[in-house]
């Protein structure tokens, strides 16, 4: 597929990332199990009347999407593609509790209406009156990557000139507590906190004045092992006539669990002499946390600088042109993303 260009990158996360004035300089570290998002003043993005009914994920999504379009100086994209792993869990929980508490009586539709996974994508389309292509991906930890891949494909097919892609996930209030307990019962559980966030990016088919990075390649796959991961990544890079030595930094979705072995295998072999980065200690683990990694990588390319807090080793490069991201969750939903300068 042809590369496509990134013209804006917006993050709402547990760090102060929405205001782009500093790039992960004064980060927060988390003692607790939850890394809740830092919310902007939503009044600048959504009317207070509309905002009152909206769940966290929808608000974060609309705000991040609007800012991504504003930064890219784009009014209406040709397509809106979103990813979410857990979907609108706040409204799902609200409706579930209402069903269970009142034995299926006295229910109102609002939380059901807002519980479907495509709520964020739909609300963005509704806000922008955007009638173009609109899809929501729910492929766990590869939800965001699925959205980006579809966006790249639309631009490649000439079905769109501009695409808004993003990922959103909210923590919710109830299920997360049992998720944490279930995780804690595992032999080598996730050690980063659980987080939430919304990340949106404006992509274009051709290079624009404001383009600052390009998506060269993206691969999503279902299964691999520590024995085959090295070959898998080398084969992926070969498709773009690159070797592991051409990679200026590798961004890894490490979360401390047993499946970090997959990342470690690459750290100890092909990417031994490459700057190695992690980020989930900053944003927490959630299905679209990899979009925070993606945002980080685009900023590294833009600023030609890696914040200390991301570094897993002490290797530096004079310039950061090719960045590879690898993410997976519990040995599933793997993705390689190759970003380059442009």
């Amino acid at each position, binding site marked *: 597929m042809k590369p496509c260009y990134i013209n804006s990158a917006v993050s709402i996360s547990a760090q102060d990332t929405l205001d782009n004035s500093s790039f992960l300089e004064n980060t927060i570290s988390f003692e607790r199990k939850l890394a809740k998002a830092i919310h902007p003043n939503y009044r600048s993005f959504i009317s207070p009347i509309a905002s009152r009914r909206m769940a966290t994920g929808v608000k974060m999504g609309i705000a991040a999407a609007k800012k991504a379009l504003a930064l890219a100086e784009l009014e209406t994209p040709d397509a809106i593609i979103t990813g979410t792993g857990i979907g609108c869990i706040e409204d799902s929980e609200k409706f579930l509790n209402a069903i269970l508490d009142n034995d299926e009586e006295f229910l109102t539709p609002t939380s059901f209406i807002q519980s479907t996974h495509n709520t964020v994508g739909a609300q963005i389309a509704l806000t922008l009156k955007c009638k173009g292509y609109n899809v*929501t991906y729910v492929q766990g930890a590869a939800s965001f990557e699925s959205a980006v891949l579809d966006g790249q494909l639309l631009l490649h097919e000439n079905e769109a000139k501009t695409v808004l892609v993003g990922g959103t996930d909210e923590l919710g209030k109830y299920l997360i507590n049992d998720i944490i307990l279930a995780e804690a019962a595992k032999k080598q559980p996730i050690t980063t906190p659980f987080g939430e966030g919304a990340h949106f990016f404006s992509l274009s088919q051709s290079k624009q004045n404001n383009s600052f990075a390009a998506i060269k390649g993206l691969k999503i796959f279902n299964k691999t092992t520590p024995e085959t991961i090295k070959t898998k990544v080398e084969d992926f890079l070969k498709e773009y006539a690159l070797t592991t030595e051409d990679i200026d930094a590798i961004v890894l979705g490490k979360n401390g669990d047993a499946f970090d072995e997959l990342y470690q295998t690459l750290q100890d072999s092909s990417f031994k002499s490459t700057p190695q980065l992690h980020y989930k200690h900053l944003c927490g683990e959630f299905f679209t946390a990899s979009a925070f990694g993606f945002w980080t990588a685009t900023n590294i390319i833009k600023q030609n600088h890696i914040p200390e807090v991301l570094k897993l080793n002490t290797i530096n490069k004079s310039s950061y042109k090719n960045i590879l991201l690898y993410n997976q969750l519990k040995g599933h939903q793997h993705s390689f993303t190759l970003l380059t300068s442009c």
Partner: protein
Amino acid sequence: MLKNRVAITGMGIISSIGTTVEANLHALLNSKKGIAPIVNIDTRHKNEIKVGEILQTNAELAKSLHLNENHNYSRTALLGCIAAQQAVKHANIDTIDAFRTGLISATSVGGMDLTEKHFQNYNEESRKLINSHHAVDSTEKIAALLGITDFTSTISTACSSAANAIMLGARLIKSGQLDRVIVGGTDGLAKFTINGFKTLMILSDTDCTPFDANRKGLNLGEAAAYLVLESDAVVKQDNKTVLGYLAGYGNANDAFHQTASSENGEGAFLAMSKALKVAELNPEDINYINAHGTATPNNDLSEGKAIKRIYGDSVPDFSSTKAFTGHTLAAAGAIEAVYSILALQNNVMFPNLNFKTAIPELSMVPITEVTKKPLNYVLSNSFGFGGNCSTLIFSKN
């Protein structure tokens, strides 16, 4: 003709009118509906609704998949595995990774049937079921069953989900990213969706009557269906029998309301127009429309208007098969894709059951009897909450 055609070489389905493709065809040809009072779910609303329910219990479905008793499969995953397995078998695939093979599945409810049982009282044992809540879970289980290790994705755009899964599969083949993709969708019935649609007051207490002036709302259903899409190269190399082709597809957003369709059916109109353009067809080339036709007052009027915007007064033969199966939500697009292919293969149009009186604003009369006629192109619509509208066009050659 399109470059890199997308052939359909296998189909699998489980719905309230049959647990195989043959059984579904038999029911469609004999006007045997699958709509009845609910059996497997204990709901307060059982006397006020009728549903398109698959009568096998989860235990029976699990047994047919040879799962052990303490499995963590949601009903959505069970149905999905059964239908996807059939599709791969139907396509005579022995070695799944002989070609670059992907899986794209759709679901809206995911593992909600399990979550709603345990949500307020998880314990150490039942917490193991939390992972089955996520939409990706049924896809993972299907991928594991079929041995798919390559590209795997899940789509959730409410009731248009499976149509979008089929569309993405076709685009990945056309652009040369994959050689073969298993595409479709699965949704089991759950209290969550029954109560959700109930609060919206769009559930009918009788058999639903799509496109009828006096329609009262929809019957919910559950089902799963998958298609095997293969590239021309695979078809040639393996000398495959082709059941039909995916000729066109279109996706648009109504951008009107979170749940209601716009009065003039803008999203539906745009989706159909795009699909015709991709297929390089004129509207009059379409021989039969398998409409979304949920039998809600809003959908049928809006969809009818959108069809009229394209066709004026010369609307092609059309029907909704929702009165057979109920509205199977994220699976609907795949169920109706199977029915569209069956229509093409057998040169037959399936009846729009329970229709009596045309909607006055539309004066559109659907096919009400099993009707034979040579078919070359069938158009299938799927629309969902969130304004998500998708259209697929299937061709015989």
